[in-house]
């Protein structure tokens, strides 16, 4: 139980730090699903699975972009929770097979909406900080502004860490319950979803980012050429 709590705290802590990178500080893109999930995979000794799962999730959330004042779906929170639940399952429950991570993606995908809501709430709370900054400057306490920035960072960190702890623990519970009652039919369904549905949806999301129609034509031609080369190699 202590081991599990420590692992959960680790996932929550990493999620808090990554949430800072996502919007509040640095924005080095370590919070992108590909990097975030790879990092978690490395921490849980599941490097290859982490990188692969990160690649799938990166494609699925490729279109989450912070354009202007728009608050997009929170891809970081969703990815870290999905990966966290999968890696904790591998360490504390049983073997991670494709059905487990497919189920985790299906269960965890809506967390991006909860994350978006959390971001909006944090932005509303920051309004108070802007008012305090006005007061601080008016009264000549200009050093107070650094403290306000620190407060905003701490708030973002704790809000995201707490959300991660709750979501990951709930997802792990659901994963364990569902995995134990899955029949072979459902394992087939999850296999097909993991093999066809998630990749094609991921590529479609990424393609939807392309500004020119010629880009989509180019992608289709590349697909045909590479698929033919790979298929011929396979037949040979």
């Amino acid at each position, binding site marked *: 139980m202590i081991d599990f709590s420590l692992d959960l705290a680790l996932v929550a802590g990493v999620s808090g730090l990554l949430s800072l990178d996502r919007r509040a500080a640095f*924005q080095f893109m370590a919070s992108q699903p590909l990097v975030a999930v790879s990092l978690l995979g490395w921490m849980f000794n599941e490097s290859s699975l982490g990188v692969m799962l990160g690649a799938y999730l990166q494609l699925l959330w490729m279109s989450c*972009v*912070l354009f202007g004042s728009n608050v997009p779906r929170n891809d970081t929170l969703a990815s870290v929770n999905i990966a966290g639940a999968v890696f904790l399952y591998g360490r504390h429950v049983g073997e991670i097979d494709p059905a487990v991570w497919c189920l985790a993606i299906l269960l965890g*995908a809506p967390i991006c909406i909860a994350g978006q809501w959390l971001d909006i709430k944090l932005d509303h709370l920051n309004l108070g900080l802007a008012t305090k900054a006005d007061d601080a400057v008016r009264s000549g306490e200009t050093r107070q502004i650094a403290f*306000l920035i620190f407060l905003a960072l701490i708030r973002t960190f704790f809000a995201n860490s707490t959300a991660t702890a709750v979501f990951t623990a709930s997802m792990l519970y659901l994963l364990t319950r569902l995995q134990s009652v899955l029949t072979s039919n*459902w394992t087939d369904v999850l296999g097909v979803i993991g093999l*066809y549905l998630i990749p094609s949806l991921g590529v479609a999301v990424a393609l*939807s980012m392309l500004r020119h129609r010629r880009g989509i034509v180019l992608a289709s031609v590349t697909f045909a050429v590479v698929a033919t080369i790979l298929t011929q190699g396979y037949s040979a």
Partner: protein
Amino acid sequence: MIASSKNARGAISKWVLLRVLWRSFFIQAASNFERMQNVGLCFCISPALRKLYSGEDLNQALQRHLQFFNTHPYMSGALIGASIRIEEEIANGTRQPDDVSNFKRYMMGPMAAIGDSFFWASLRPFAAAWAVMGVLSGILWAPIGFLILFNLCHLGLRTFGLFYGYRDGEQICERIHKLALVKFADRTHYLAALFLGAIAAIFADRAMNSPFRLADGVEPFLLFSMMLIFLLGLKRSISMVSLLYLAAFGTASLVMFLNSAFPIM
């Protein structure tokens, strides 16, 4: 006109600019819906303003930077650098305090548009598509490559913007325009398209080598058709999560039906 300023000309050393650069990484920390990045901007620029002003002048200068401000975080360096130069001239008495507010007001939108177009809509999808293709081809360090590729541009432009912005003042906007980032962004779209086509082909190959193989050569067509259907759905503003659930439900129904209609003995 501000007369009680400190030794304004040349007061901003490289060390001060480095402090401003470090603080610019936190420009979105207290982002809010009313005035967006105003607290972050005030935090960034305050080391420079402290070198230029003191007392009530400092408070007034800080208040100028607590107004509405919203630009692309990576392009903020250029605007901050140029604002520091204008503040220096205000402190010298050669410009009006309103000039800095006007400069920010007119330039934050165009800079945000360049940054959004270059970083968010082009470089990030391009670098991510390249890294995903790398991962699928077995290159496990591809995520690190993604970080290096992206941040070379990010840190380069942020640092260049701040230092050259301070040197050139308002001319920095012309300099950034000359970098032709939007044109470069257009080209990366085509490269990203190439990578995405290859990624889809690798997925098709994986499906052909899996236990869920359907029939000879059907898998690539199936994957491609699903991709186009999803693309149409996304273009019609159906969210990714809704599409995922709709398709998962459809897949589950189909597999259940096929397994019950054609049971394997």
